[in-house]
């Protein structure tokens, strides 16, 4: 239940309780007043009747079977019918204390009345009956009015409750909206609340928080921007001399010394490119540029180019939605890795059902490297044979950019498995085994 509904309900219930309570008190007070007045009237009539009885006796008065004189409320004397409705309590009091006037209301039944009576010594008892019907009708009219009033108060309370609660809720919702806008990155969003109540305090606290948050995020953004532009500058500053070095060394005649220089210049160029790539991957700065293409054609083209002696197992076609350049990069690195550090026979398997691409060799396996996966130059340390040793780290990072994973394990040689997310599969042709990529 929303705060607005709960507040409105609470205010409506309180209104109903207050109105109902006041109504009840008013009703009870009115009833008591009217009964008291009826008692006074009855007592007065009893005294009048008693005087009449004393004056007229013995003629004119009727003697009831109980031996009392009965005077009706209207002043007429001699209505015996009253005797049947006399409350027993009144009768016993009147008869036990001669000379005193007693009254007793009987408000139940269709014909409510207040009875009064007194014992006249030597004559008998005189009773009067004062009808309460008129009062009863007025009281019930009052009751109806009070019930309507209570109902009206409850409705008005509910409406007021909704209005008040809506106002509160609107202000609270504005706070919630601000929080969401901040979360969505709109750091300039503010509430600027007016007033001094708790909600205004909440608003001001949110504004303060937004201010602090904005400042922190701007600092981080600036730091990240500095970092990015620093990385780009470093890349540029490194590439310019290396480009010159490679270009200049390519002009040298192929003397043994010049070949060494050319080879080292080329290795340096590769190392720097690989390092820059690892930096970009680590920074999460890489995003895939996907396209739809036939992965089978890519795998068979690249394998024929880089490791033609590998046995390939491919479906006829496998159209995928992925980034062909990154897939090429991963596959080249895995094939180069197998060629440099592994032994023949090599196998490349593309399984369209699991969307996995496996490159397997029959060398001594990843071995130490598996335990030292965090050490990026481990491969280079295990076997020096050209390359930066960053190939697997790059393949792993590129796999992540594609939403996939790269798994390495040893099984009579090194086995590297690239798993692409199943949603990158568009359509599969029938699976066949071919003899080789050549």
């Amino acid at each position, binding site marked *: 239940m929303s705060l607005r509904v709960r507040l409105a309900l609470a205010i409506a219930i309180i209104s109903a309780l207050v109105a109902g309570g006041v109504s009840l008190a008013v009703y009870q007070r009115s009833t008591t007043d009217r009964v008291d007045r009826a008692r006074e009237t009855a007592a007065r009539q009893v005294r009048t009747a008693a005087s009449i009885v004393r004056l007229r006796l013995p003629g004119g008065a009727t003697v009831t079977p109980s031996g009392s004189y009965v005077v009706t409320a209207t002043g007429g004397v001699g209505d015996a019918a009253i005797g049947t409705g006399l409350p027993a309590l009144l009768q016993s009091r009147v008869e036990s204390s001669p000379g005193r006037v007693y009254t007793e209301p009987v408000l139940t039944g269709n014909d409510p009345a207040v009875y009064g009576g007194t014992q006249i010594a030597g004559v008998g008892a005189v009773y009067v009956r004062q009808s309460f019907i008129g009062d009863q009708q007025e009281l019930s009219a009052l009751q109806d009015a009070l019930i309507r009033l209570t109902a009206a108060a409850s409705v008005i309370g509910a409406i007021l409750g909704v209005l008040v609660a809506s106002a509160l809720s609107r202000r609270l919702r504005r706070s919630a909206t601000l929080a969401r806008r901040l979360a969505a990155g709109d750091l300039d969003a503010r509430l600027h609340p007016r007033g001094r109540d708790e909600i205004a305090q909440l608003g001001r606290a949110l504004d303060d928080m937004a201010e602090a948050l904005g400042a922190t995020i701007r600092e981080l953004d600036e730091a990240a921007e500095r970092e990015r532009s620093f990385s780009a500058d470093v890349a540029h500053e490194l*590439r310019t001399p290396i480009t010159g070095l490679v*270009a200049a060394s*390519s002009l040298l005649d192929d003397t043994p010394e010049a070949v060494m220089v050319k080879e080292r210049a080329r290795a340096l160029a590769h190392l*720097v*490119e690989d390092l820059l790539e690892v930096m970009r991957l680590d920074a999460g700065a890489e995003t895939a540029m996907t*396209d*739809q293409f036939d992965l089978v054609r890519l795998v068979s083209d690249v394998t024929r*180019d880089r490791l033609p002696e590998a046995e390939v197992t491919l479906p006829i076609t496998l159209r995928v939605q992925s980034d062909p350049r990154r897939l090429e990069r991963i596959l080249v690195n895995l094939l180069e890795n197998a060629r440099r550090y592994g032994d023949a026979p090599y196998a490349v398997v593309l399984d369209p059902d699991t969307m996995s691409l496996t490159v397997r060799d029959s060398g001594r396996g990843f071995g130490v490297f598996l335990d030292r996966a965090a050490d990026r130059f481990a491969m280079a340390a295990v076997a020096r044979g050209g390359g930066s040793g960053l190939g697997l780290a790059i393949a792993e990072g590129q796999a992540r950019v594609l939403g996939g994973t790269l798994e390495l394990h040893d099984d009579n040689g090194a086995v590297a498995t690239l798993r692409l997310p199943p949603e990158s599969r568009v359509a599969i042709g029938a699976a066949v085994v071919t003899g080789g990529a050549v």
Partner: protein
Amino acid sequence: MTESQLPRMLFVEDDPVIRQATSDYLARNGFEVIAAEDGDAGLVAWRESDPVLALLDVMLPGMDGVALCRAIRAESQIPVILMSARSDPIDVVMGLEAGADDYVTKPFEPAVLAARLRAALRRVTPTDIERAPFEQIGSLLLDREGYAVTRDGEPLALTPTEYRLLVEFIDNVGMALDRAALLERVWGYGWAGDTRLVDVHVQRLRAKIEVDPAAPELVQTVRGVGYKLVQPSEAT
């Protein structure tokens, strides 16, 4: 046989070592190189020497490579190749949209660079002469021997890359070609090529051959695959 028969190319690069060494390498490998050290000098050299190819570094003092490319493209259809040392993809897109045919990133192997330059020049001299010499697609007329395209008799000024791209589409009319195939056939790239080359060039080709480039009728996009050329049902 003589130097005048070598393709003359403009090379603008501010780093003296790269400029000198690359110029020497290219000069030894079949190019006549006119080298310049900044954009303004490059523009002057381009006007004076009338090269058949331009190789421009992107980051140059003064007028940068992208602006120089735009200036050359405004007057000439020669192949322009940009050279960038930044991995920032914005550079690449800006360069291609300024009219460049291809780009290479530093550091490059001089041999690979020379191969890319030759590939760009090859687009100027197509070898598929055994096909029908004339081909009509809608209001377009392709003249293979004259190496020209006209629309309603009006000659269209296509760059060699745009021409090669159009010929590739015409040779496979009605067939959807994916970006990888176009990259390989037009630019000579394998799978490591940048598919944005294809997209930017298709846009530029459309701007020249379509009546309404925003609603292309000839070169249509095949969603999720690439592009195809459609022979209009009524040839005009």
